[in-house]
């Protein structure tokens, strides 16, 4: 039911209301539109025992692991894209005493299929995959089903139902009708699979902007619980048409994350040391100028009849 309570709120309020200790949390986005601002607020509010799920844990989950938020990681590729390793993740997993972080591991297709099943409210999703790989041995939740028509044995993964999914997007209206462009990853499926949805946007727009191009809407307001206006909230990830990826920071993370103390200093200064994303941006003069997107406008379309 479309709730009539106002959904637009601060990041602090959204995380306080919708992310609880022990939750399964998804901050999705494939390189693009990863909501670092939400991850930082979760760290600031001291959430623990979270099951963090997403295809590519990226720097934000590395920070959350380092900050002690995570009990378990559900994923398919845990690296620093284009750079190297996530060292907080590796420290939590490698070594003779065994992992301090529980892992549930798939491939990208497997994770996508888990979200697709969750979004469709099916208990499983079939895929032609995993024959010959050791992944089902490492993860017994990868199972099989037999086709009732051909007798073929297909792989299956179980549905994933996050407690909360956080999606960063270019724009939404106050009711949470959300439009995204550029790489859209698996955000639609994750949102529909989820019990609660927080949308964080670069721009809060009038409903008429959304209604002018309804095919662009990926997430309808009826499944959204909170809308947060947080410009630059995806930095060092990017927002197509708004700002570029801060590759320098991804490269720097290799050095920062290798060293526990340096990592702690980073969190102290840029996460605990700021109140919100606006304060974070104030600490980085010149960033907005350096990364601001150039103009490349889409050809128009007509919706008249």
């Amino acid at each position, binding site marked *: 039911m479309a709730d009539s309570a106002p959904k637009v709120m601060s990041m602090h309020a959204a995380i306080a209301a919708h992310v609880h200790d022990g939750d399964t949390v998804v901050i999705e986005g494939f390189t693009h539109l990863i909501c670092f601002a939400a991850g930082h607020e979760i760290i600031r509010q001291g959430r623990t025992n979270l099951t963090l799920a997403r295809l590519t844990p990226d720097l934000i989950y590395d920070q959350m692991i380092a900050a002690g938020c995570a009990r378990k990681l559900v994923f*398919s590729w845990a690296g620093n894209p284009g750079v190297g390793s996530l060292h907080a993740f590796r420290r939590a997993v490698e070594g003779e005493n065994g992992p301090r972080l529980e892992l549930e591991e798939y491939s990208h297709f497997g994770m996508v299929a888990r979200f697709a099943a969750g979004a469709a409210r099916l208990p499983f999703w079939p895929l032609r995959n995993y024959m010959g*790989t050791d*992944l089902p041995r490492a993860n017994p939740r990868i199972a099989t089903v037999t086709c009732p028509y051909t007798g073929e044995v297909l792989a299956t993964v179980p549905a994933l139902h996050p407690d909360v999914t956080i999606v960063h997007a270019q724009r939404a209206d106050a009711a949470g009708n959300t439009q995204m462009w*550029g790489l*859209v990853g698996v955000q639609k499926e994750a949102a529909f699979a989820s019990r609660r949805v927080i949308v964080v946007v670069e721009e809060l727009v009038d409903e008429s902007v959304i209604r002018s191009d309804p095919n662009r809407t990926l997430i309808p307001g009826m499944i959204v619980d909170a809308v947060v206006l947080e410009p630059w909230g995806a930095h060092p990830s990017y927002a*197509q048409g708004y700002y570029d990826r801060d590759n320098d920071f991804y490269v720097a993370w290799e050095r920062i994350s290798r060293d526990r103390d340096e990592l702690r200093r980073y969190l102290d200064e840029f996460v605990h040391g700021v109140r919100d994303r606006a304060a974070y941006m104030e600490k980085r003069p010149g960033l907005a100028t350096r990364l601001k997107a150039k103009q490349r406008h889409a050809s128009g379309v007509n919706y008249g009849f």
Partner: protein
Amino acid sequence: MATVAARELADGEVVFVGIGLPNLACNLARATHAPNLVLIYESGAVGAVPERLPVSIGDPALVTGSLMVCGMADVFQLFLQNGRIEVGFLGGAQVDRYGNINTTVIGTYERPRVRLPGSGGAAEIAIHARRTVIVSKLSPRAFPEQVDFVTSPGHRSGGVPRDALRMPGAGPVRVITDKAILAADPEAGELILAALYPGVTAAEVKASVGWPLAAGRDVGCVDPPAARDLELLRRVLDPKKLYLKG
């Protein structure tokens, strides 16, 4: 390696591009002999024409000006599982005698000595792409007789051949290294020596591989990169030397 890998691509083919050298190889092929190559990235960009060298497979430059951007459910279901991808590039920390690739762990899965990133899309690319090309530098550590963990299956995994496992794609037909090209023996599925880089001996290559490397009937010689290709790589495609290290 980039120029040698680029030669694996025919004009008009649909190629699933990984990051790093494969990306460079694909863009080189597109700039030279294969202008109609269709580049697909697992991020969802189809027919990408990046204005700068993408620093990741999710780079915004892959989106701007591409032919299509779709969600990842479509990438894996409608393109890859559907059989639309002709060539997939793969790399990995370990490649074994049968072309199995490990990008998951060194050591045991439960107590890894080194935790690698994991599959990403590699497992399904290895299974579904009509053929794959592996790109990896040669060393005994990188080419053991058997990988610690099969992330992406080659021609035989656990002793069972691909067709018995009903894998749609043909598997890794070629392995491009920095010293030689290996190729899969059509019957046994074992990687054998196919061609040597100029100045490299077969003995040198055999010493870099953890199994008794057989040689193909005609071990060829890899043509050195054309001056034009090197120029393109150094001046246009990777001027900042993001991937062309050393």
